[in-house]
């Protein structure tokens, strides 16, 4: 962009120097040669000044390393120089944005030892994933702008763009409430939470640390503090990462739908204050240990954007392997990449969960609604029939279910609860 006119002037000078030299020699007029020599001197000095202006310039970037798709990201670059450089251009490559190259001008002079800060704001307009930011390129020129010198500083950062997440409305029906404010995490029944409910007489087996000494002194018998039941919801998200369920391309693909749905589930569950763990089986086991809070959400999303539909283990087997890690009375949400599940095996697993008081919900991505990338899809009628059969099978067992099609808008589909 920038050097076009400068190069034009340099070309102009080079051309006229040649013309002047030819005229001076051919017509034997030293005045032409004098002007040519003066301009050759100007070009030589400009070239030397352009090369020298880059010496001793360093830069570092300050950037929060992750954002969601569509977020604005402020970036700060601190530039330091040793020679009082002027008019230097700082070019940063911000990978998550379509506008990859960000150019800024530091008019200078850069006082030796002092740091100057340049700022720009970019958008995460590219799809989720891990992108690179950098390197930083410093472009400088001589005062006349005839020659440019550039150096690339190896200031490269990784930047994670998380998928756009949506509120999953159906999650609150399963025991969690979608709210950012502190949730009611206990119930008025005696349990193990930190919220006191009252005092009662000591019973054998009660923890001595719970003895309420003032009440004991008043009553003359051992009294213990009673606390409420802790209701912090506990979610397990099980992902289907089977490579046989890959279909579609780009934003309209099963990978996109499965991972976006999982991200939205994790987001909604974390916002409701619950513990969340994630399990799946790609080419390597995918596991996010249980945790809660913003840091855990970030960790889970980091893991999620590295996942891929590259496994070979059927979903039923993944669920079976995860079964021991699911605590009783918790909630399991299974995200499948297909409607064609083994109903017999699924029925057994649902019963196993129910026997432990675990609530199960399923989100099924219909991979045959996406353009196939390998093999032929079954006939449309067969897919519709399979969907109906699966819905009936799951609902008859009290499992909330939602089928996601290629034509569905994920925000609306996930925000619309469990009804189809």
């Amino acid at each position, binding site marked *: 962009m920038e050097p076009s006119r400068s190069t034009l002037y340099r070309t102009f000078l080079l051309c006229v120097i040649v013309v002047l030299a030819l005229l001076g020699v051919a017509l034997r007029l030293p*005045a032409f040669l004098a002007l040519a020599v003066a301009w050759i001197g100007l070009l030589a000095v400009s070239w030397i000044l352009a090369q020298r202006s880059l010496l001793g310039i360093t830069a570092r970037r300050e950037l929060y390393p992750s954002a969601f798709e569509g977020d604005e990201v402020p970036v700060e670059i601190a530039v330091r120089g040793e020679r009082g450089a002027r008019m230097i251009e700082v070019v940063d490559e911000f990978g998550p944005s379509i506008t990859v190259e960000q150019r800024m001008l530091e008019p200078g002079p850069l006082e030796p030892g002092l740091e100057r800060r340049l700022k720009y704001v970019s958008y995460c307009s590219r799809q989720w994933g891990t992108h690179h930011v950098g390197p930083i390129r410093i472009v400088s020129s001589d005062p006349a702008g005839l020659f440019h010198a550039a150096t690339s500083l190896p200031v490269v950062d990784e930047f994670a763009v998380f998928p756009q997440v949506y509120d999953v409305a159906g999650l609150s029906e399963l025991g969690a409430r979608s709210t950012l404010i502190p949730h009611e995490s206990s119930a008025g029944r005696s349990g193990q939470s930190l919220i006191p409910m009252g005092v009662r007489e000591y019973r054998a087996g009660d923890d001595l640390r719970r003895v309420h000494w003032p009440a004991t002194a008043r009553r003359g018998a051992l009294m213990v503090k009673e606390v409420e039941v802790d209701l912090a919801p506990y979610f397990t998200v099980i992902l289907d990462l089977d490579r046989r369920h890959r279909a579609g391309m780009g934003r309209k693909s099963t990978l996109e739908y499965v991972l976006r749905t999982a991200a939205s589930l994790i987001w909604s569950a974390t916002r409701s204050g619950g513990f969340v763990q994630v399990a799946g089986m790609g080419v390597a086991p995918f596991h996010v240990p249980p945790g809660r809070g913003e840091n855990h959400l970030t960790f889970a999303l980091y893991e999620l954007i590295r996942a891929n539909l590259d496994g070979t283990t059927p979903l039923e087997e993944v669920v079976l392997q995860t079964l021991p890690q699911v605590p009783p009375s918790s909630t399991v949400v299974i995200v499948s990449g297909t409607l064609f599940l083994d109903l017999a095996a699924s029925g057994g697993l649902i019963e196993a969960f129910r026997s432990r008081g675990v609530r199960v919900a399923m989100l099924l991505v219909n991979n045959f609604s996406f353009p196939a990338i390998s093999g032929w899809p079954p006939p449309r009628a067969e897919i519709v029939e399979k969907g109906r059969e699966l819905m009936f099978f799951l609902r008859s067992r009290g499992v909330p279910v939602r089928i996601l099609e290629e034509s569905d808008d994920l925000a609306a589909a996930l925000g619309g609860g469990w009804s189809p």
Partner: protein
Amino acid sequence: MRRQPNDLLRARLLALFLLSLGAVYGSILAWKSERATSLLFLLWPPLLLGAAALGGASIHERLAGLVDAHVRGRVRSAAGIVYGAILLLLGLGLLVGHRAAGERGLVILQGLQAVFLLLAGFGRGYLGTLVNAFALTVASILAGGTGAAVSATLLGGLLAFFLVVDHAARKLTEYPVESLPPAGPILARGALQALAIFAVLAGWFVVFPAAPYARLARAASVTIPPDKLAGLLGNLLFLAVGSAIAFYLALRLGGGSAESSEDVKLVAHVPARRRSQPVTDGSFVERTPTEKPWSVRIVKLYCRTTEQLARWGRRRRSFQTPREYAGTLAPAGAALELTELFSRARYGREELSESDFERASQASREILDHHRRRS
């Protein structure tokens, strides 16, 4: 808000004015030195050149959008061919030693210098002014004598000054910076570079006076007596300095009245007013014509942007798709982003969000800012 380096912009036009004046005065001294003794005769170059540059600068904004970029390119090509032919004929005339043809050609070049300065005032590039000044200087050097020395020295030095000022002005205009650097040190650097070249060339011509081209020397020519030369040079210097001051004052008080330290508001931001909640008292309520208000806004924004670009000569051709059209715009990233959002808003089924609209607005601002400077 974006700050304009007004001091540097004025200094750039002033440098071009002085460079043109030096070339014209040099050619007068070299070729018509007998008429140069009249002070009245020496008044027309600063008046004509100053009027051209100031006129160009003052009507720049009004004429900028009249001609399409494609038409402009064709006119430029045709003018380049005609100008090249004039230079070729003049060069041949001078090389064969035809003094009369050379004098007539010089008058044309002096007139063209004013035309190029007018175009420079429009903001249509400065290369024409430089090339024509160079042609005038070459013709002056062929004639030899004091005119050749003055012409070569002034062109050599003023070109160096112009390059420094132009580079700084262009950079500070293209990039938004939080605070503009003071113009003084930049101008001083340019002046230092110019003085160095002045000194080298002046020293050269003192030691080796400029000799005329042999064939032109044989033709009848009038030379200034040495006793009148000092007075003539003094007159020229006085006129040049006086006209430069007048030119600068006219620029500052007339066309560019804004102070360099003031913020120039290029884009007016009007806070968006949200649609009020519908009245539910049973009275008639007009329904919104669409359920995708942000998409509609983005489409309208795209249309407004392309209409404005068309006014500046960047019209979308009938054979171009929006994406192909975006490829011709700059900055490339912003153009692509706006086009992508437009395509999603216009042809997509999903409703876009407020943040998409803000992204589109930002991209539109970047494109318009860029092309506003170039128009």
